[in-house]
């Protein structure tokens, strides 16, 4: 065997090649994503220079689209574990073949989350104050310090698992299970932790009755298991259609069954929260009333929240009562994905601030800067995901194979 060809730098070089090879359609896709990312980067550069007054946020609604997307992204990353559980805990062979797609989704989503937190900082130049040892990391008191630990841990675990599996496959070796299976099981527990800790960020605040609910963390987990499967179901079909990769039906059916349950569980939890708040009444219900019907004539969120509810209900009905044809399934996935995205942002983060702690009503709508930056970050996430999938497919179908290179 030629050791030089097996080297790690050689592997990386091959990966770079595989990641950037493709059809005209691929280049077009990558160009559009890059363009959106550049627009976002530019908007962020102005925001840092001129201040966050360029956003729609205020001292009353001090978190907005960025933190909403961050929260949603954590759910997406955690939701990917819904592939890992069947594959490794229930030895679902077919799921095992595609589980790496879930891990790639986790990596891309965490990256998106980190970017959303970064653009939300008023002083990104002081990011180093968060680094344990150099800065003054307020661990274990601040939930945000926990969040930083669990998110970076989750990123590293998933990078290790995918990196190790790809590298061994590339070298034509059988992966040594003791090098990655423990990490896979760790990633299952870890996935639950990232979204629980993210929920604790909000539910731990006694001054915000809308968030101060013990149901928040379970609900975050359930919605994570809506968006993760919904995204992967569509993604697997896209991979099947656009590449030569063989995607079995089993995983799609498994994920559809998961989605059917989690989407109903989420609606049940929403109903449970709504009942508790509205029946007992008082100020605890003010934020919910504001988002459902408006308060004192302020109604910006109302259409958003009903759209989210509508999406979730229609999606649940489609999954329950319509035969699982691909287009209906994809519509159901799209609707539930959109529904949870709105629910996490306009339905959860924003009404937490309205009415304010002194019961003032100051409304919020994202500015153009916020939309640009947010779109740019999602574009970066899709870029990373696309490149990741290309590399994985190249390795898995044997186009990237160290042992075959010189045969």
């Amino acid at each position, binding site marked *: 065997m030629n050791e030089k060809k097996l080297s790690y730098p050689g592997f990386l070089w091959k990966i770079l090649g595989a990641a950037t*090879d493709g059809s005209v359609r691929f*280049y077009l896709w990558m*160009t559009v994503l*890059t*363009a959106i990312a*550049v*627009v976002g*980067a*530019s908007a*962020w*550069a*102005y925001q*840092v*220079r*001129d*201040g*966050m*007054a360029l*956003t729609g*946020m*205020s*001292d*009353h609604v*001090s978190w907005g689209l960025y933190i909403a997307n961050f929260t949603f992204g954590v759910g997406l990353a955690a939701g990917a574990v819904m592939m890992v559980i069947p594959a490794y805990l229930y030895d679902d062979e077919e799921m095992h073949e595609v589980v790496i797609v879930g891990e790639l989704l986790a990596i891309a989503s965490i990256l998106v989350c980190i970017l959303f*937190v970064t653009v*939300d*900082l*008023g*002083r*990104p*130049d*002081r*990011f180093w*104050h*968060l680094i344990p040892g150099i*800065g*003054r*990391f*307020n661990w274990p*008191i*601040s*939930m*945000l*310090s926990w969040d*930083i630990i669990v998110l970076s841990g989750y990123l590293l675990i998933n990078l290790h698992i995918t990196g190790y599996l790809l590298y061994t496959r590339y070298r034509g070796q059988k992966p040594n299970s003791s090098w990655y299976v423990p990490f896979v099981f760790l990633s299952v527990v870890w996935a639950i932790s990232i979204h629980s800790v993210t929920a604790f*960020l909000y539910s*731990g*605040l*006694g*001054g*915000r009755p809308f968030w101060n609910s013990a149901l928040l963390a379970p609900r975050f987990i359930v919605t994570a298991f809506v968006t993760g499967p919904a995204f992967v179901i569509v993604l697997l079909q896209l991979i099947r259609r656009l590449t030569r990769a063989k995607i079995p039906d089993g995983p799609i059916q498994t994920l559809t069954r998961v989605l059917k349950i989690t989407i109903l569980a989420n609606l049940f939890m929403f109903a449970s929260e709504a009942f508790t708040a509205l029946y007992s009444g008082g*100020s605890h219900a*003010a934020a919910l009333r504001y988002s459902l019907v408006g308060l004192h004539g302020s109604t910006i969120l109302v259409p958003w929240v009903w759209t989210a509810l509508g999406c979730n209900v229609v999606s649940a009905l489609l999954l329950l009562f319509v035969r699982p044809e691909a287009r209906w399934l994809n519509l159901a996935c799209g609707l539930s994905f959109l529904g949870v995205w709105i629910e996490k942002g306009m339905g959860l983060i924003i009404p937490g*601030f309205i*009415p*304010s*702690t*002194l*019961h*003032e009503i100051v409304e919020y709508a994202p500015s153009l800067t916020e939309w640009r930056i947010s779109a740019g970050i999602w574009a970066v996430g899709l870029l990373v995901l696309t490149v990741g999938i290309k590399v994985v497919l190249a390795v898995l179908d044997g186009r990237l194979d160290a042992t075959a290179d010189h045969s």
Partner: protein
Amino acid sequence: MERRVALKVVGATLGASAFAAAMKPLAEWAETLTAEQFLQKHFKELEPEELARVLERIEEDARAKYGRTDVTVRADAPMEGVEFGYALNLSVCIGCRKCAEACHRENNHDRASDNSYIRVLEMDQGSLDLEHGNAHYDHPVPAPGKFYMPIQCQQCRNAPCVKVCPVQATWQEEDGIVVVDYDWCIGCRYCEAACPYHARRFNWQAPTIPADELNPDQGYLSNRVRPQGVMEKCTFCLHRTRRGQVPACLEACPTGARVFGNLRDPNSDIRWVLANKRVFVLKEELGTKPRFYYYFDG
């Protein structure tokens, strides 16, 4: 194959240069920061001579920026045996908002946003429900059937804002004042979400203050002009109170509704109020244990 590689290189170059062009405002902003500022340590980690240098630099910057040679920036330490407390007589307050105005000037607040650490709520007689308060009243005061409730930082003993800060940029001093190191805060605004009293403010852009209105008597942890992108809050005017003066809001109050003093001094006015008046704190059920008290006469 050769052609494909060449195209990839061209594509990557175009992408990279578009990105570099997009980031230009960031480079302009970075030029306004010095390495010294970037590397400055946390307030509590500064050695005395380092702190002296930092204060001198902030002073020089302010003098140059506002053309005022009288600017001084100090870092008075908490006084031994002192824990500040504040009480407000709701029977006497007429809602004139002189306190909010005095805060605005004293603390070098941004003029454009008309910022102040004090919000005054107009409330209906017969209810303490903040939900029915109104901070935007615009008519002669006191209005019939109303009473007035100024709200500012409660200097909580169990402060949610301090707990949530991921970088310890905000903490409670020995005299009970919750302060912010404006040069350490990363601007994540978690404290602003955590505060139950809407006591914290963010610098959404660099504050603007006319040079002739600048208060030159400044404290590092209190009223010096804040940088863009960081949190700020009421400090009971510690640059004054740590030198034996009263807070600006008390000095401005025309009705004597405000009582300020040392909670550890049994002979202080504040202790007399706590002992002799029916006193309550805001949102007691949250367990924040405020050092700011309200009471009614009679």
